[in-house]
């Protein structure tokens, strides 16, 4: 909204200046000797063409000039700087041409200064306004950011040191400092993650091992559950933050079919315990996706584990993968209790839990949130649908990697087909 308002203000401002300039030049044109010179030149021209040009009345000329002067504002906001410069020059030349045609053919002389000079000035005028408001906007945003950082306790630079330098220099140094603060924040965030990943999980892990040394009774069992849950929460928090901080530039090409197969393999034992019928339908050939292998594997495992967890014993769990030329779609269909309609929109949010289950059995409440963040970062998505009492369906879509033509691997894949027969890849 602010930007649109700013753009409108810029237009009005520029238009006002141009109109004023144009009126001034066309109404006060008589006393200006420059115009006189033009006039005499034109008279000379028209005499040679046979006849004397008639000068238009002052108000008519002024209105025409104003109109011609503000016309560039129609295209200036839409074009790039170099384009608008070229357009304006072209416009200037054509206006001059039209005025000359007016004199030579129609014998009408319009004093041109009120149109030509504003047209010349229109471009610098407009660029200057734009720059000014862009700067104002950026200054404002920078100040907001700095205020937020200050509220977080990041120190500000000494004001007087900055005041000594010229405004541009101090602005640059403020941007640099703010950027540094942001980098520091990022760093401290990953430090916290490392801290959690090691320093909190390690003692919990040690406690889990030590607990094994005791004879099993109901107390050790309960303690074991508590420790496992605390560990799962630390892990869940860590995973969710990791997903939020994925570096998209580190994505690698991976075979999503193998990855899903691996996730299915991982839940095989659990499904065996519950005597589930695992119906997996995966394509034979690899399908390539660009992404982070570890995070995607964990995301898909989370969805499968979730489905196994809510599946009743001896029920069927379907894992289906289909693809078209642009994307893959994975469906995980269970026959569990399903998800109530009012809960279904919330399950992918942070710290959400499905109702009706004892707390100690729950995970961190971050599992599906992690999945949705991970998929979003991979330009994919996850949706859930369910009829209460009739199971739930989770659908994951991911865009396929599109290789450039001529890439060496594309050739290699083609080579694979005959090689199957010649047995000599």
């Amino acid at each position: 909204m602010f930007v649109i308002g700013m753009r409108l203000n810029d237009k009005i401002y520029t238009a006002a200046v141009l109109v004023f300039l144009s009126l001034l030049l066309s109404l006060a044109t008589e006393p200006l000797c420059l115009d006189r010179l033009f006039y005499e030149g034109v008279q000379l021209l028209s005499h040679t063409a046979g006849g004397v040009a008639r000068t238009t009345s002052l108000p008519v000329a002024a209105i025409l000039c104003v109109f011609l002067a503000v016309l560039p504002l129609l295209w200036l906001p839409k074009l790039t700087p170099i384009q608008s410069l070229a357009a304006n020059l072209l416009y200037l030349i054509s206006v001059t041409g039209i005025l000359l045609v007016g004199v030579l053919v129609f014998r009408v002389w319009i004093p041109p200064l009120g149109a030509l000079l504003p047209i010349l000035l229109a471009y610098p005028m407009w660029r200057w306004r734009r720059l000014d408001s862009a700067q104002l906007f950026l200054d404002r945003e920078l100040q907001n950011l700095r205020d937020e950082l200050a509220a977080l306790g990041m120190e500000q630079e000494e004001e007087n040191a900055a005041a000594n330098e010229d405004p541009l220099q101090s602005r640059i140094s403020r941007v640099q400092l703010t950027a540094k603060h942001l980098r520091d924040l990022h760093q401290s965030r990953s430090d916290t993650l490392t801290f959690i990943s090691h320093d909190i999980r390690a003692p919990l892990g040690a406690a889990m091992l030590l607990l094994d040394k005791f004879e099993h009774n109901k107390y050790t069992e309960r303690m074991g559950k508590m420790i496992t849950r605390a560990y799962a929460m630390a892990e869940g928090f860590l995973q969710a933050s990791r997903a939020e901080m994925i570096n998209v530039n580190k994505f690698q090409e991976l075979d999503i079919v193998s990855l899903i197969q691996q996730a299915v393999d991982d839940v095989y034992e659990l499904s065996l315990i519950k005597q589930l019928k695992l119906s997996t339908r995966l394509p034979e050939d690899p399908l390539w996706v660009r992404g982070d292998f570890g995070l995607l594997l964990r995301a898909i495992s989370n969805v499968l584990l979730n489905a196994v967890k809510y599946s009743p014993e001896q029920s069927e769990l379907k894992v289906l993968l289909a693809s078209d030329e642009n994307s893959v779609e994975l469906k995980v269909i269970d026959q569990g209790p399903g998800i109530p309609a009012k809960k279904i929109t919330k399950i992918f949010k942070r710290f959400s839990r499905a109702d009706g289950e004892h707390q100690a059995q729950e995970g961190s409440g971050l599992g599906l949130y992690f999945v949705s963040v991970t998929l979003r970062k991979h330009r994919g998505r996850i949706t859930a649908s369910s009829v209460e009492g009739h199971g739930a369906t989770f659908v994951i879509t991911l865009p396929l990697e599109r290789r450039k033509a001529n890439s060496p691997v594309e050739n290699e894949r083609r080579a694979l087909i005959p090689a199957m027969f010649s047995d000599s890849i």
Partner: protein
Amino acid sequence: MKIALLEDDLAFAETVIEWLEEAHFEVDHFETGLDFLRQFPNVQYDLFIFDWALPDMEGPDVMVSVKLRSNKLPPIIFFTGRSEEDDIVRVMEAGADDYVVKPASRALLMARVNALLRRVASQSQVEACYEYGALKLDTKSRVATLAGEEVKLTDKEFDLALYFFKNEGVLLSRTHLMNVVWGAISELETRKVDVHISHLRSKLKLVPENGWKLTSIYQQGYRLERN
């Protein structure tokens, strides 16, 4: 069999020593990297187990120092609280043979230890025929059979299968596989390994239903395990 354990967390160390000793291994325990670096050349060890965070240095650095001081080393397992992909890739690139993320079950740690020791023992010999349940690999005729039926494998697929089965349970790094099976291929052909592994899995039916699990570890390494 003698194992060196480098671990500063005494609670962990105590448990792990107990596990190993019950499996009839001799264990020397070190709490600091320097301590270990001073002692290890004097004893012939069959396996090293390293923690990541030590009071005086980091596990990967200890490993690098060890590799500088000796050219004939036993396999190295990292036993670490770190599970980040970057960390695991780093220790694998530095030359670790495997890693186990804490807190691991006794069964998992012992499986990794045994797989590595078995690999060292069996490295030199090539047998005429390998049998793994319903699967049979004949190294002379280079024919693979699954439940008596021949499975068509390409040359490279057969090599890869043989290598995986000979190193059952061992983490095989991607670079290592590329070198062994293809004799070094360019990084551009990264799909190649994945394509072959995917074919191997579907042709030989290496799925848990048949008692197998073929896992990719962040695409940096692969492991074939018996379920």
